[in-house]
Structures are given as C-alpha cells and as structure tokens.
C-alpha cells in the first residue's frame, strides 16, 4: 500500500536525467519501453568558459546494451510510466493499493509493527503496518517524527531552473555547460534538452537571493534573454529555485521502518544521482524484504540493505560534492585552480578529465560487503567482479539481462555439468550460454575476459554474488547462503 499526500503523479519537473541502470531496473518491472520511447538520448556534451567553447565530449556509448547511458525525461513522465505499470498490474490482480490524498501524520514504532495515523479529506484513520518504507523525500516527515538525524553539508549557493519550450535550430540535442558565462546570467549555466521541444536551463545565482523576486517572469526572462540572445522565442513552462545539501542518515534501517531515496540521503543534482540512486535503493530492498516476509531469509538480510545502500550513498555524496566544489569553488585559491584547469583544457587534453560538471550516475559496486562472495574466476574482467551490477550484452535475438531469472540465477558461460542449485528452499536457476549465443563477442568480453569458461551466481537485483572457473556445487551453495544472510 502506497500513501501519498498528493493525488496523482508528482508535479514540477525536477529530475531529467535517468541512467541506464534505472532503465534496466524499470525494464524488469515492465515499464522501460515507454520511458525509452519518450526520452531524449544524448551523447555529446560541450563545455564553455566565458564565451569560448573549451572542448566537446562524446559519451561514446558502448555497443551491445539494450539501454543508452542516459535519457532525458522529466520526472513526472518517469513517475507516470511507473504508475501506469502499477495500474496494469492491479488490473491483473496484483494486490497493490495507491492511496492519494492520504497524509501520514503520526507514527508509533513498536517492536514488530508500526501504527500510522493517516489524514484524508474525509477524516483520519489508523493503519497497523508490519513494515514501513519511508520514501517521503528529503524533508521526510517520518524522519522528523522519529527524531532521526540527517547530517551533512549545506552548499551556500542557489540555482534557478527554468524549463522552457522553444523551437530553435541553434541548440542541438546536447548537454551544454558554461563556467562563468560572459552573459552573466549565472555564475554557471546548464542547457539540456528534454522531450517535446522543452529545454532545462539551470542558472547558478548565488546564496543571498530574494526568491520571490528572482522567480518573477520578467526577471527569469532577463536571464534567459541574456543567455539565448535577443531573437530567440520561448515559452516558460516551469521555474523553481533550489539550494542543495549533501547529507545522509547514519542508518537507513530502524527496525521495521526502512528509509529509501531522498529521505535517507540527499545529493546535489550534479551527476543525476538522486532519483537514480533511489531506484537502486528500492531495487535492493525489494527482494530482501520479500524473502524476509516469506520466511525464506532471516531478518538480518535487511541489515545488508543498510550496509550496501549506505556505501552507495557515500559514493554518490563524494562524487556530487566534488562536482559541486568544482562548479562553485569555495575559496579564492580553489577558484584559481578551477580556472587554471579550464584554461589548460582548451588546448591540452590532459586537463579535461579534471573538469567536473557532474560525474554521471553509475551504480555502486558492493566490493567486500557482507553478501558479496568470492572471486574465483581466473582472468575474469574487472567490471563483472563480485558486487558489480551485471552489464548487459546481446544474447541471441535479445539481451542478457532479460534472460536472467527474477530470483537468483546461476549463469554459466561455456561451462559443463551445471544445473539449478537449491539450498534451504532457495533456488538459483541455471542459465547456460555458449559461444554461439554471443554473436558480437560482447558477452565473452564482459563475462569471460581471459577465462575460457565461467560460472556466475547472480542476485535478484542482478548484482554478481560470486564467480568461478567451473561449476562447484558446494561453493555455490555456500555463496547462496551467504547472499541470503544465512551464514
């Protein structure tokens, strides 16, 4: 049951960049198709300093993935496609309930359940919940009601966002980022394409600003006109001012209350790590909570949600903090170095990797964490080591990720004698792949490397648990127990 204080999907644009991993997750739940159809795929980015283009990059997407590295799609669309999929599942009998205009107002935490007080236009009522997932955003009322911490860094800057509709040939489907643009409409400025001829413009406007004044249409237009030039026509679709923080809760799990998304961790928008990491949170939590509720795994499996997603949050916070420090330098000397990097990168390629206008969201690798098992594949590729999310690859007429089971999978590549493995009621379904299934060779590159055969044990959220050269039933059973927190 989902409670939301509003009715219908979220309004206001906010997130626009959705990463490959989010699309892969959405695809497993059956709703990536409309996202991909509607979204804008982009690969080229340009970086400007003052009025000069200092360089251009191409994300050069790796071949052999069903989904692009990123699509641009306004958050309300992303949410709409998720809800439509839920409605479809409901129609097929899935026991899901969405309750709009139901605001959580009180919470009483008990040992094995919580009592929720919910306010609706018709009056209040109580719910007894065995489990409660707090997905109530950065301002999380639940966190507040439970008196929990949310610590980190506040950045003293604000950004004015305008989503505008314009029909202009001057601006291609690229990501343009200006440091200190000479039009002075922002200390930095971002221009990014969305579907339906809409553009996201993001102006860095400083800390002490009068929000109401800045949001007046005439003032927003002043900035836009300075940036786009006097003759460009556009319509303002949505504006907002945001400031940002990089912070997280110390613990995401509090007994039977589990925090996910922005309520648990908040990052600056550079790198698109907010909504994308929220998707990874729920994907991580879903299978674990399912197993615990069904009695297939001990309660402590849920502690690994906290362990893994806290590590991911730290990684996201680190990356988005570094990007923010580069974009909005905090001292005179860091400003000097920032501009030295920009100046050098115009003519010297070495400086370009130092330019940081956001390191775009990639999923965390759970290296060395409790559920992650052994790496016993000699010469196996780095990118598929235990803890990694499985990279996609073409497989026959389709793709590997769609062929993996919704539960645990035992993936073998050119290996003999393997079969389904069952351990304490948990089954890892065997998926066997041979050379002939891999026409492009991408699968061998990503899963074999130097090895001639490989055996991978894969979780329901498609992270690698452990891998071996050959089928070793005892080792696989042990890894499966460990991945269910039974060791």
């Amino acid at each position, binding site marked *: 049951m989902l409670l939301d204080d509003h009715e219908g999907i979220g309004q206001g644009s906010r997130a626009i960049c959705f990463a490959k991993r989010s699309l892969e997750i959405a695809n497993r739940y059956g709703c990536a198709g409309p996202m991909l159809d509607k979204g804008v795929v982009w690969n080229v980015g340009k970086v400007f300093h003052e009025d000069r283009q200092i360089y251009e990059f191409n994300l050069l997407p790796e071949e052999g993935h069903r989904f692009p590295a990123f699509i641009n799609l306004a958050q309300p669309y992303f949410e709409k496609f998720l809800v439509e999929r839920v409605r479809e599942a409901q129609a097929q009998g899935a026991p899901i309930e969405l309750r709009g205009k139901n605001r959580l107002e009180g919470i009483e935490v008990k040992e094995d359940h919580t009592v929720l007080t919910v306010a609706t236009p018709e009056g209040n009522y109580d719910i007894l919940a065995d489990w409660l997932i707090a997905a109530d955003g950065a301002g999380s009322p639940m966190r507040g009601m439970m008196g929990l911490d949310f610590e980190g860094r506040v950045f003293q800057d604000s950004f004015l966002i305008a989503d505008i509709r314009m029909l202009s040939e001057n601006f291609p489907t690229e990501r343009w980022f200006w440091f200190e643009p000479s039009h002075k409409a922002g200390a930095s400025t971002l221009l990014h394409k969305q579907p339906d001829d809409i553009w996201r413009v993001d102006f860095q406007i400083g800390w002490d600003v009068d929000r109401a004044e800045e949001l007046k249409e005439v003032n927003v237009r002043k900035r836009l006109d300075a940036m786009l030039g006097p003759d460009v026509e556009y319509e303002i679709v949505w504006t907002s001012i945001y400031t940002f923080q990089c912070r997280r809760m110390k613990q995401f799990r509090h007994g039977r209350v589990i925090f996910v998304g922005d309520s648990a961790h908040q990052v600056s928008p550079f790198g698109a790590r907010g909504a994308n990491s929220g998707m990874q949170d729920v994907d991580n939590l879903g299978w674990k909570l399912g197993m615990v509720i069904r009695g297939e795994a001990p309660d402590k499996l849920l502690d690994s949600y906290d362990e893994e997603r806290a590590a991911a949050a730290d990684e996201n916070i680190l990356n988005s903090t570094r990007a923010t420090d580069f974009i909005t330098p905090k001292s005179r000397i860091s400003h*000097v*170095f920032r*501009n*030295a990097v920009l*100046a*050098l990168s115009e003519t010297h390629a*070495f400086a370009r990797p*130092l330019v940081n206008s956001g390191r775009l969201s990639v999923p965390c690798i759970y290296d060395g964490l409790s559920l992650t098992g052994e790496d016993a594949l000699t010469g196996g590729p780095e990118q598929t080591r235990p803890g990694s999310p499985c990279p996609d690859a073409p497989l026959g007429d389709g793709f590997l990720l769609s062929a993996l089971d919704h539960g645990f999978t035992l993936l073998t590549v050119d290996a003999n004698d393997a079969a389904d493995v069952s351990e304490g009621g948990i089954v890892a379904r065997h998926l066997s792949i041979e050379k002939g299934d891999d026409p492009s060779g991408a699968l061998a590159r990503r899963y074999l490397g130097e090895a001639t055969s490989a055996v991978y044990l894969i979780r329901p959220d498609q992270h690698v648990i452990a891998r071996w050269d050959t089928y070793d039933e005892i080792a696989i059973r042990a890894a499966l127990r460990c991945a269910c927190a039974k060791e």
Partner: protein
Amino acid sequence: MPLNTKSNIAGADEFYAELIKWHDGLSDEESAAFNARLILLLANHIGDRTVLSEALQIAGGSD
C-alpha cells in the same frame, strides 16, 4: 621515498631566475593563476599518485 628531493636540476640558478622572471609584471592574481597552471602541468607530467601525495605533504610542511 619515490619523490626525488635531491638536487636534480642542472643549472639551478638559471631555472630559478626563469621561474621568477615569468612573474615579472604580473598582478598577484595573475601570478596565482600562472602558478596553478604550472602545478597542473607538472603534476600531470609526474602522474604517479604516490609521488604527488608525497610532494603535497612536504609542501604542506611535514618532512
């Protein structure tokens, strides 16, 4: 200690004079920018992360 802290520049006086000469006529701000560019160029040339960290530590006052 991978960072070479022994004398390594042939013609030390000439190098020093050349370094200072580049700052002639620069404002403090321009000098700071010059130094930053120089550091970035040299750091990239060295490349080795342990050497760079060691140099940073020594520059920061620890021996």
